[in-house]
């Protein structure tokens, strides 16, 4: 059965801290891994990763994929209160098939 695991499930930090969120997966025929940020209702897209070892970066956020060890990390440097959200990892196992979502990491950034 396809599975995506995220850790930690919950994290509380202070502004300015750096955080690393983890996503590991077990899926057949892996195609891509996506990170989403969910603040209220709708998740918003952050990164799509398909190749190992290539870092994707957007401002203070970055992510990298390791297809050999079957995991990805999402880094957030110099965290701000606006980074408080649930961060979801999703993996696409088959061509055209539905993504498998992890449970999410709830990040709380305190002022």
């Amino acid at each position, binding site marked *: 059965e396809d599975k995506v695991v995220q850790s930690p499930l919950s994290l509380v930090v202070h502004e300015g801290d750096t955080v690393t969120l983890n996503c590991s997966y077990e899926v057949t025929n892996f195609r891509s891994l996506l990170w989403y940020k969910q603040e209220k209702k709708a998740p918003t897209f952050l990164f799509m990763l398909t190749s190992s070892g290539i870092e994707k970066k957007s401002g203070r956020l970055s992510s990298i994929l390791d297809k050999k060890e079957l995991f990805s990390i999402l880094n957030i440097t110099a965290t701000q209160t606006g980074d408080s959200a649930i961060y979801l990892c999703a993996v696409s196992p088959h061509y055209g098939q*539905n993504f498998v979502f992890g449970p999410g990491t709830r990040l709380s950034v305190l002022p």
Partner: protein
Amino acid sequence: GAGVSQSPSNKVTEKGKDVELRCDPISGHTALYWYRQSLGQGLEFLIYFQGNSAPDKSGLPSDRFSAERTGGSVSTLTIQRTQQEDSAVYLCASSLVQGIKFFGPGTRLTVL
């Protein structure tokens, strides 16, 4: 449209009533997905439409749930005889095949 839209944004209903939730995907997106998210839980897959193919209904939790997609665009998720455990945020997403999913704002359903 510019993004995925859903209506209503909030729905309060009484146990036993039927509800219909609507999703308008991004124009040109062939894939449409429904998820639900209960309080404090992760995203639960419900159903997936891809072009003219038969939908993947493997995530529908019971036969009270059904969905259709008319003309390859708008989709309606119907929940019959609602139960309190159906209370959740229902999220719709669309994508091109193999593309990034874009989510709608969701419908918060509360069953009293």
